[in-house]
């Protein structure tokens, strides 16, 4: 089925290059004009609350509610941060929004800044997004020159300045409080919460952090109204569209903007062209590397926050990774564990020590040195991490192991017993194979 594009509308329009002129030609910067004219900041917050827009960065927290947590005293300086650190394996939607339609994001940020009363906003962009950073910088300059940013935007006496801050390559800097530390020039380590950023954020001031996609939704909500927004997707809890980055063993990997709540099967088979070589699906990660693996039996799940949670995973960042029947689940889990063990920031004991412990056991199992007690040990370690860490990374890193152990324990047991892999063409003798 074909769906109406919202966030992708401009960038899928032929000839659209994302310049200010392009953006304005397709109706850009009308939302901010409208908001400045028609809504007081509190009204804008209310509007976004009513729209039910939820965060697209991972946790799915309602955006309007988050904004409303900020202290009401206008004398307190507050900040807006755009989380453009997109580093979750399997997720690549923000990058496209940044590179192809930067003004949509800028307008979204202006709306958010206006609503929360922030005069300064930062875009924290992943260090590797060199091109994206150039595009954004150019767009920011254009917007400033055109009077959209600065002291007195559009003659409204509202001041909004946006700054681009490039990351330096750590995955953890996508975690919102690590991101704040990084902007402050410190090591990017998550902060213990509470206090939450809404009270004690950037430089100790109330701060809102939103994802690129979340913010890019705002101009459309303002332009087309709450009713329209709610009419898309799985309202009332998961309204709007969602951009899924589909990757893995599919015929057409890529970003697909669809209404939230379409079945996973439809996303894979209709949007992403089905599985390569018509193989069967063995596993799907529905929401980025931090989400638990789903089995083939979950393919009819609706792709919205609630339904995915019900089957034991999460919609997360919208990165959908499809694995076919030949995939070794131990190796897949190990692959992700290697990533997490490499990216743990090391701040808190359970995650710092636990991640390396887990990866060592996983390597042994994968390489044919597994021991019978390893599987229980994995579960025990995961449980000692889960819910006990400074940031959500701890819960993320255990998801692949716990879910694969739950659904494919026999594969682990086969590795341990037979010292080799049972899955498809990777059934070779494993003993003696070095690290990947």
């Amino acid at each position: 089925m074909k769906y109406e594009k919202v966030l992708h509308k401009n960038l899928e329009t032929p000839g659209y290059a994302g310049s200010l002129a392009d953006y304005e030609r397709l109706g850009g910067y009308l939302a901010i004009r409208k908001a400045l004219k028609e809504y007081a900041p509190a009204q804008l917050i209310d509007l976004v609350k009513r729209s039910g827009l939820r965060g697209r960065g991972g946790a799915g927290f309602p955006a309007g509610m988050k904004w409303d947590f900020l202290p009401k005293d206008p004398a307190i300086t507050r900040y807006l941060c755009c989380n453009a650190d997109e580093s979750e394996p399997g997720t690549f939607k923000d990058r496209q929004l940044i590179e192809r339609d930067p003004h949509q994001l800028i307008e979204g940020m202006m709306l958010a800044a206006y609503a929360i009363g922030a005069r300064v906003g930062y875009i924290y962009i992943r260090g590797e997004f060199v091109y994206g950073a150039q595009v954004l910088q150019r767009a920011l300059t254009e917007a400033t020159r055109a009077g959209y940013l600065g002291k007195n935007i559009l003659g409204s006496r509202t001041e909004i300045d946006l700054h681009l801050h490039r990351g330096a390559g750590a995955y953890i800097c996508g975690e919102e409080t690590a991101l704040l530390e990084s902007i402050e020039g410190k090591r990017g380590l998550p902060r213990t919460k509470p206090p939450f950023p809404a009270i004690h954020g950037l430089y100790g001031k109330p701060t809102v952090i939103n994802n690129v996609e979340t913010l890019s939704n705002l101009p459309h909500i303002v332009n087309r109204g709450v009713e329209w927004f709610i009419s898309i997707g799985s309202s009332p809890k998961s309204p709007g569209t969602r951009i899924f980055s589909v990757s893995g063993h599919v015929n057409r990997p890529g970003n697909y903007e669809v209404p939230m709540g379409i079945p996973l099967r439809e996303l894979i088979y209709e949007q992403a062209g089905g599985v390569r070589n018509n193989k069967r699906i063995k596993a799907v990660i529905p929401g980025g590397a931090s989400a638990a693996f789903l089995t083939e039996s979950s393919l009819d799940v609706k792709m919205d926050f609630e339904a995915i949670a019900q089957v034991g995973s999460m919609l997360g960042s919208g990165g959908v990774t499809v694995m076919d029947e030949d995939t070794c689940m131990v190796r897949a889990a190990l692959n992700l564990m290697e990533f997490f063990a490499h990216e743990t920031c090391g701040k808190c004991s359970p995650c710092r020590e636990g991640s390396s412990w887990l990866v060592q056991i996983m390597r042994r199992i994968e390489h044919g040195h597994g021991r019978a007690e390893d599987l229980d040990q994995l579960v025990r370690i995961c449980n000692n991490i889960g819910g006990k860490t400074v940031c959500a990374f701890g819960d993320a890193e255990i998801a692949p192991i716990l879910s694969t152990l739950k659904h494919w324990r026999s594969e682990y047991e086969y590795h341990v017993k037979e010292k080799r892999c049972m899955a498809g063409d990777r059934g070779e003798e494993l003993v003696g194979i070095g690290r990947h």
Partner: protein
Amino acid sequence: MSESVQIKTETVKLTIDGREVVVPKGTLVIEAARALSIEIPFFCYHQKLKSDGNCRMCLVSIEKMPKLQVSCSLPVSEGMVVQTNTSVVADARKGVLDFLLANHPLDCPICDEGGRCPLQNYSQKYTAYGQFKEEKRIYPKDYFSPLIEKEMNRCIQCMRCVRYCDEVIDSQALSSVNRGFHVEIGHYAEKQLDCEFCGGCVQICPVGALLNRLPLYEYRPWMLTQTETTCAYCADGCSLRLESRPQTREVIEVTSFWGNETKSVWGSGRNEGDLCAKGTFGYEFVNSPHRLTKPLVRKGGRKDGPLVETSWEEALETAADGFRRIKTQHGGAAFGALASARCTNESLYVFQKFVRLILGSPNLDSSVRYGAVNAARAMTELTGTPRWLTSYEEITRADLVFVIGTDITQTNPIAGLKVKAAAKRGAKLIVATPLRRRISTLSNIVNRATRHLAHAPGAERAIAIGLVKAVLEEGRLAERVASHRSTQRLRDAVAAITPKQIERATGLPYEEIKAAAGEWASASRAVIVFGESVIRAKDGYETVRILGDLALSTGKLIADGCGLAPLMEENNEMGAYEMGVVPDRLPGVGRLDDESDRDRISRAWKEPIPAGPGLTMMEMLKAARDGKIKALYLMGENPVGSLPASAGAAEAVEATEFVVCQDLFLTETGMKADVVLPAASFAEQNGTFTNQEGHVQAVRKAFDPVQGTRPDWEILSEIALEMGYPLEYEDGAEISHEIARLWPGWRELPKRSEQEEAVARYLNEELAEGVSERYRLDRKTDHSVAPNHRFRLVLGPVLFHSGKMSLKADGLMKVMGRPFLYMAPEDAERLGVTEGRLVRLRSAYGPVQRSVDVEVKMDAKYPPGLVFFPESFNEPPVKDLLTVELAPVSGVPVFKTTEVLIEKA
């Protein structure tokens, strides 16, 4: 009604393990539990630090919260229900320990922390299971620093060290480096750690990852005896703990009051548990093989004979005989006596009693004469007491701190922490100093300044005058002063000084001074902290008085939260002054020239006190050279080593018929003495020191005096006995009692309200007195920087040294084993020298025509044209380039600065 509302808003009621507790709002759950004596285990938490919540040891379960919460960073809320002892919580603790033990080397048997380590203790308590069967992480061993040993394999990454170094010390010498599993503690310097060496990171590390390197592997903690006592180095007056081995009479290390035990007192003492390098690593002088352990006398009693070892009996007899002889032949006035302000109050008290009653001499003085007396005297005139009417606490809470005349981290590091804490809290910080901003791992108070008055060297008085002028002329006077008749005299005096003159003297635009004065006047809790560059200058006394005028005229002299905070150098300078070890004062700051004071004390002593005026130190030395002083008694004081050669101290000692010296070490003065008596150190006796604020603090004996030494007061007693005058005391405590009887308020802090009277008197009588002399800009004080190869040489204290004691402390010598001439990089370039090269210094004027070669170190903190040399070092003899000038009122020998010519050596 309002009261009950207040209580409601300020406290919170919660339940922990079924027990209710009411605590102040904002209290952390872990502290609320402590209030109920419920112990929640923790590693990364520390009351001195902001919560970081990284170890996850303190997890507790809280009703209505799905996840366990870290109690070390969660504030209580009304009605909260906390469980600290469920099986879920117990499993979490066990789990955390399991993680922390996973990669830990478990080398407890050889770890210096073993036995006082919470990781050991909790593992035992929560029976952590060592489940880890993978390969352990091994950090390669690397050399960290001469004083601090780093054993990263033991590190639990709690970051207390890094946080302490940043949040408390403001040195930022440490950081975590690498990421994740490979996180370790690193430092910013290139090769080895280069920092303030406060040792705080060692103290605060819960495990054996950071250790004092000096006694490494030499002890097991449970074999050591702890003695809580007071630091013998500086007047900040830190409480510390000597960890010693009484059997061998050795100090093994120094710990602070918060260190490792998880249930420790969280930083008691004036220092709240913080110490500086001298306190932490300077203890080894006590154990030094250079300690005197046998009395020495001149062989055959001949002046030209060598000093030879002898028995105590013979030495005491020789001393007593000599004194008796001089006394009968020449009378009491032929004695001069000098004491070090490092001695205890008790020894100082007995000293002055001995000199006044037994030697019968009014000629006694102490090392306060090197400068502290300027402050003590001016403060006494202003407020009736030499003690502060403010405190460290008030500095910390101030909304404005004005620091003048001190590189405070170097001179008074712990007082410096209070100023830094105020600045970090958001207080305004005005710093008047010629030093520049420069970031390094030795914290520099200028960096924290919200206003930097970068004046010409030596212009402290001009700054103070400028501020008073601005305050008066801008109408910022406190009411009481504005309407007072004395004020007109002050007005006239400052009116006679033009803004131009002030600008010329300070090198600053008058507007800048006016702005600072405005900030000062509008602050409501404001303290002036001033140090040696004010106090030890030739016009030190006047400058202190002017700063007093500034505080008084703006109503901040005795107002709550305000006051003057003179910084002193030696640990017991306040005590020496208060015990009357100056010619014009009697114990309890009585005045010798005050009949009633003299009578009161004479009555208590049952002996008349010789009337004065006695001679000050420099007068004594002159009298000795002139043959009028026949005998000198030196208790821990070393004028030959302390004064520049041109002061003639050596000649004075040589010219004196009979010289007795008691000291820890054989000093330059001791080498010229007739009798040398080995004294016990602060670790070997009971007594008290009075810190610069005026707190009388306990000095406690860790072990008996090192074989062959005796406490100073005991030596005095014995000589007295030998001379036929009983001056006997059972122990230090008995002397303390006698002091307290004589001066009932001794151990109490002066009360502001009680000083009202003194201040009123000052306002009525003394404010106007001598204003024209006070408010004068001496042309000579224009120390602006000279051109070409002329430089202003400044001598001053440094963080790592104090002189005699520190130079015998191997630890401190490892950090700073030799002195350098510090200069601005621009100057080094101008002279064509690089770091480590020698330069030749020559006095630019005056009779001294010596030259001295000294090694250069570049430090951009020093402004061009100014070079700095640490005064504790006598070698190379840079000090001898200076001529001593006498301060007019106080007779302080001034040798802080001179002009020198510098060339490449």
